[in-house]
């Protein structure tokens, strides 16, 4: 094939490059579309409030473990205090053991006030908001549950 001296690339080569650029661009657009397609998040459950019964029935210095929430609730002289029993490592539900709580999955141990005693968990247990209604019912607020 002859080509004028002032042309640096052949017509065929030029068209080949154009093809690669446009097809690459199409692939990129397709990938963006794919990422957008997978970006949808179905609704997460609403934050839930769980009734724990009349506050007056709760003994002072008592403790309540509710594995269905899962949470532990204490009443001290200072008032009510709740902690999530979800391990801060990878989310298993903790078991009561000795003085505190231990994780059946990877062996993290927390003291009764939620402080990490032994790893691998790095963070203390999340405190949960405990509320007493005007009628005297004890409520605990949790984040929207998965599973």
């Amino acid at each position, binding site marked *: 094939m002859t080509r004028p001296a002032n042309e640096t690339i052949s017509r065929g080569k030029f068209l080949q490059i154009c*093809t690669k650029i446009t097809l690459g*661009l199409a692939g990129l657009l397709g990938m963006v579309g794919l990422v*957008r397609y997978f970006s949808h998040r179905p609704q997460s459950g609403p934050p839930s409030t769980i009734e724990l019964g009349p506050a007056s029935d709760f003994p002072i210095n008592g403790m309540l473990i509710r594995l269905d929430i899962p949470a532990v609730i204490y009443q001290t002289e200072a008032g009510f205090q709740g902690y999530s029993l979800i391990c801060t490592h990878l989310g298993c539900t903790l078991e009561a053991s000795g003085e505190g709580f231990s994780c059946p999955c990877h062996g993290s141990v927390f003291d009764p006030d939620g402080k990490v005693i032994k790893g691998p968990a790095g963070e203390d247990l999340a405190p949960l908001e405990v509320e007493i209604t005007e009628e005297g019912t004890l409520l605990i607020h949790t984040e929207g549950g998965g599973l």
Partner: protein
Amino acid sequence: MCQDCHGDQGQGLTAEWRAVFAPDLQDCWASGCHGEDAPPGSFPIPETGAPALAVPGALPQFSTAFELGTYIQDSMPLAPPGSLTEDQAWELTAYLLAWQQAGDPAITLSGTNSGAIPVHSQVKMPENSLPGTLLLSLVLIIGAAAYSASSKSFQGKKGRGNFFHHLHPATIPADQSRFGYTLGAGGLAVFLCLVLLITGLLETFYYQPHPRGAAESIQMLSVLVPYGDLVRNLHFWAAQLLVIVLMVHLLRIILTGAYAPPRRLNYLIGLFLLVIALLLDFTGYVLRWDEGIRWALVVGTNLLKTVPGIGENLYQFVIGGNEPGPPTLIRFYSWHIYGLSVIFAGFTAWHIFRVRRDGGISAPPPARREAQTRIPRRTLIRKEVLAMLLGGAVLLVLAGLFPAPIDRPLSPNGNLAGDQGAPWFFLWIQETLKLGDPFLWGIAVPLLAVIILGLLPYIVPHPDPSQLGRWLPKGSRAAQIIGAAVIALLFVLTLVGWLS
């Protein structure tokens, strides 16, 4: 009734209006109108006043706007329940969602989108997918034009073979690749199958194969997932077009005598693929699990019961119980995405393998070919790419302009609102069923049609070899007439069903 006391504008709700009544009627409770023993047509109202719009604990019972809307329509207002129009029920639902600061004001709620809208959280509407789709189509068209021009002018070295070249014929006789002879139907079918495979895989990431959630998940895909409507519409239209393309392919094979030896086996494989494709279309259609599929599912599965001897067992095998329910949906789902699809993919591979093993697309025997010219792979690929592009453009236009159908989620207690017809690709069976005995006309006759088509290469004379490679070759008129008649009958019955 209400207007007797409340006036045409609801004036009766004010103390001033009540003051004009006789003194013993001014108290709505003591007078009996809204007291404990309210007369017929009226109803008791607590003396504390009108009840709250939704008492605490009422709304958390509902998770989607569809559940709330159908509850409102069935049970509200108090007197008499069910007296709202559908639009009024959806307007009230939208009001309650806005009151909850949920949903999205931009959405007009209806039975066909509310299953995707949660009652308790705000939804984020995706941006319109049309600009992105158009942009992608435009880039593809420019790319194909550049590819077409560059491959036409390319005269350099052949380049190293790659895996794709291994699967693809190196050269084929020029007169086998004439569009006027093949109609491009086989290649187009392969392209549609690829589209179906990709879009189907994407759909499985959102589809929930459970009766309480299937239709809702499709609504979510169509309304909330970015490009979800595009994916679903492409899958739908590719499936509809596949049926048409396969019928064209079959008609082409019969009318060119291409089924003649050595291609008899491949003809049967192709016919089997057509049957599986129809079953794939039907199972996919049922996966919508909305009011639109109710009667097609009932009729289609009850038809199995009529098979002598094994009918009852066949029915239970297909629907997974004594009546359609959750096991039915999971069975149709498994057949659609695993069972039938794997069979279809395997036989498609065999079909394409046999095309090459039998000497390529049917053409005159080599001795009788006037010109032995062959076209190189590059030319063939160029044609294929252009055909795919054209097919893709048609698909994108169909998917963009005509959304795939979706109806209200199927409710367990049968209501007669659903579409009472078969899907269009089974309308011909719907028409034959009107003629009498369901087994004879719904199963035996369609099976007979397939058997007649399957026997064509075995019982009627083959075309004269010198005539092969062209339309309507001499020597096989009988096969042409029988095949065309069967397909024309299907077409006419479908048309009759469509118009009625």
